[in-house]
């Protein structure tokens, strides 16, 4: 197995065309209608081949699918991204607001002069 060549039993991806542009459904937007409907599926190679070769794979469900070898040991590279500047301050600002709101509530409560509890701490101990 290399980046360009797989052997039988390797986990690979094949690509194939499901519908050529002239076979596609009516009523599609023009940009979509101009393209073939393509598909990609992963499976165990049933024979060796080079990238671009037509080979057959056995998928997880056990189907045998023919297509052009498009990737060998296909992985995933999507990430968490980086913190966008527009997002970075949201937590800090929201926490500050909640803190200020609660402090104001307590201050308002005190100035209203809440009645002491009948058996408050002072009376009890």
């Amino acid at each position, binding site marked *: 197995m290399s980046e360009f060549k797989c052997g039988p039993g390797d986990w690979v991806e094949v690509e194939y065309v*499901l*519908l050529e*542009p*002239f*076979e*596609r*459904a*009516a009523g*599609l*937007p*023009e*940009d*979509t*209608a*101009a*393209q*073939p*409907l*393509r*598909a*990609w*599926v*992963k*499976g165990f190679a049933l024979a060796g081949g080079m990238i671009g070769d037509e080979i057959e794979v056995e*998928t*997880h*469900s*056990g*189907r045998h699918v023919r297509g052009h070898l498009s990737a060998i040991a296909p992985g*995933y590279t*999507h*990430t*968490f*991204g*980086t*913190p*966008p*500047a*527009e*997002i970075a301050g*949201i*937590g*800090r*600002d*929201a*926490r500050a*607001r*909640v803190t*200020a*709101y*609660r402090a104001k509530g307590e201050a308002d409560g005190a100035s209203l002069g809440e009645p002491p509890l009948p058996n408050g701490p002072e009376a009890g101990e």
Partner: protein
Amino acid sequence: MARKRVSSVTTRYEAVMASKGEIMKRALGMDYAEFERSPIAFDYEGMMSAHGYSLDDIRRIQRAAGVGGTPLLELRNITDLVRSYAEPGLGARIFVKDEAANMAGSFKDRRASMSIHVAADKGFAGVIAATSGNYGAAVASQAARAGLACIICQETFDSRHVGQPEIVEKSRICEAFGAEVVQMSVGPELFFHMLELLGATGYLSASLYSPFGVSGIESLGAELAEEMTALTGAPPTHVVVTHAGGGNTTGTARGLKRAGATSTQIVSASVDLSGLHMASDTDFNRKSFTTGHTGFGVPFATWPDRADVPRNAARALRYMDRYLTVSQGEVFYVTEALSKLEGLERGPSGNTAMAAAMSLARDLPSDATVVVQETEYTGAGKHHWSQLAFARAQGVEVRAGDPAESVPGKSIVIPERPEQIRAKESDLGRMRRSYIRNALAHAPERYEPTPEDVVFLAEDTNSTPAIVEEMIAFTRV
């Protein structure tokens, strides 16, 4: 440029579509024909109960499948954030049902557990579902537990083979659970290939819109009613539901009613993606939300039977009391705030209802209770940071400002302050009229609706026969 069609030659697409009825009859696991009453009406409740599972049965099946019983959390910090700018006396208590705690990370496990139960019960060797959403992960996870084969058909890439990171992540998780994922380029013919695969494999079509799938969400509504009553002494005054195909609204509302919460207001919410064409190769990667948006929410509410089943069990207009839309930027703001204020890092799509709930709660009295009925998992690809990085790379402008200025596909405007989060109210009357126009258009030409049809349309639009008569007359002017 117009495409040339050779009308005398039947294409592979047309041949497969012509055998749709035959393939689906075997693949659906039930016969829908017995519920048809006329070219317009069908027996909805009869169809919903034909599977024979009571709510208790469903809960038993789901418990055995490791699904449901998720935590209900009060969001005191989010509530106080809203109260910090609400008028005095306003600012409802906000709660969330943490559905991300389900095995595959979303409420979709409730649907999938029922589909897989039916598949196993009826002796199918595998299941097939067409979905770009969390439902694929849920079906794959449940199929793995049940030892069934699973194929997920997913619209993944544009014609350049570029995939939205959220969709790519959903491919990954399906494969992680042992599903075969057929990744496709943009186009509604996804359904054609699903039919081909159903025909070739003999598997069950685990449609999102089957009666058993939608019934599976009723347990969520029932849990909300029971848990809120235990926590606050009463069912919630409002439940906010992220709305796409309609199953979430339908199942949740039905479950609430079954549990006796008949006065709870059902508020559906979607991300506004108006102006973007869902079948367009170029628009495909100009949206940051792959579900919970108006591109599904409006067409499915106004014509539910566009689904991959003869009659859709998800009929949102029956149940929604209000329909709110929010912008992508507002949901991203709320996703970040939820994480920082409540220690809940969850996926953006599920937070659509959270953004709408913050806007709603601001205008409600402080003793009202607003429940956001789901969250979804997040992670690489689904995370709002990666969504925004991808949007920028596609040429979408991302900036801070007033979210009311955002234009789907062109700009994402992140609120600078939480009071800028303002959901927009959709006109349900207009959506009801649109539904009735669609129902009439799908009946044979010159078909005259009978009094029974009028009653059905009134039920299907949560309206009255008199209003339906008026709408029919209006439609025919």
